[in-house]
Structure formats: structure tokens, C-alpha cells
């Protein structure tokens, strides 16, 4: 049995399944992506540490 991969902060990954990536093409969460784009345009970005 394959051992699950554990990343830092202990996210246990059971497996990699490329079929999940099909969701990227479905335009999910479109309203939120539109909101993100709107905030980018109207508010911009915070000042990140260099």
C-alpha cells in the first residue's frame, strides 16, 4: 500500500487525480472570480512585505 504524502502543515494527500482538473474548465465560482477582478480593478492590491 502506498503511503499518503504529507506536506508541511500536515495536509494528507491520498492521491493525485488529474480528472479533478476538469473543474478548472467549467467556469465554477464565476461570480467570485468576477468580484476578484472587480476589486483588483477598483481597489488594487495591498502593500505586501518585500
Amino acid at each position, binding site marked *: 500500500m502506498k503511503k499518503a504524502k504529507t506536506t508541511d502543515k500536515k495536509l494528507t494527500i491520498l492521491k*493525485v487525480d488529474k480528472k479533478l482538473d476538469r*473543474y478548472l474548465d467549467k467556469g465554477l465560482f464565476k461570480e467570485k472570480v468576477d468580484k476578484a477582478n472587480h476589486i483588483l480593478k477598483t481597489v488594487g492590491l495591498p502593500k505586501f512585505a518585500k
Partner: protein
Amino acid sequence: MKIEKYPVIVGATSMVYEFVSEGSKGNISKLVIYSETHLHNFYNLGFGDKDETTGKINDSVVTNNGDSEKVLATVAATLYEFTNKFPEAMIFATGSTKARTRLYRMGISNNLDSIKPDFEVFGLTAEKEWIPFEIKREFEAFLVKRKKVNL
């Protein structure tokens, strides 16, 4: 405090994660998706329940499966895997309803001790200004970015 997390299945891109919430209402599949926006390295974090019958994702429901802390800790933990692959990513998150935005705020607040050493965390105020995240303050949206490691 260490919060338990669910194991996940990850897409080959590291942009999609699936896990199963186990609680009082049964097993509910959850999806976390990091979507590209108009700006390079700026991603929207979306997460919701997967309807196993239709395959559709509902991001407006608050499931009340009795495991919200574990669910939110799992979503927070996907940030690490995602930013391992995309270290320069800025990640935007907001709820589809006020209740969902409060849920996101709760998720960040509960996991802030774990997240803050590794991420810069900002909240968008009602005055449309990004400020460093504060527990108990209302925000309209959130933005996180992995801190750079000085070697």
C-alpha cells in the same frame, strides 16, 4: 491548538482539491478550486459542496455538518500545497453570502496561528481598503500571500 484535517485528493495542477466531510448529515464531498483571474499570480479560492448526482458545486450553502472547524482547517491547509507549486500566488477569497464570508473569517481566525508565520493575511474593509487581518473585525474579502523565505 492543532485542528484535525481531512485527507484530500489533489488535481495534477495543484489547483483543485477534493475531500469528504464526515458529520451529522452524512458524507459530503467538498471541492476547493483556485481559479485564475485577469492578473497573473492572482487567484480566487472557491470552495463548496459537490452534488454527487448532478456534479454541480454549491458555494452558497452552509452545510452544518458539525465539522466546520475541520473543513476550514483542511481548506486552509490546501494553501500550503497550492503555494508550494505557486509561491508567488496572491489568493483572494470571499463568500457568496454574508454567512459564507463570516465562515471564511472564522476559518482564517481559527487557523491564524498556523497561517500567519507563513502567509501575509489581509482583509478588505467596508471602506474598500486592504488592511492586515484582525480577528473579530468584519471584512468583505480576504487576500493571502505566502511569505518569502530568506535563506
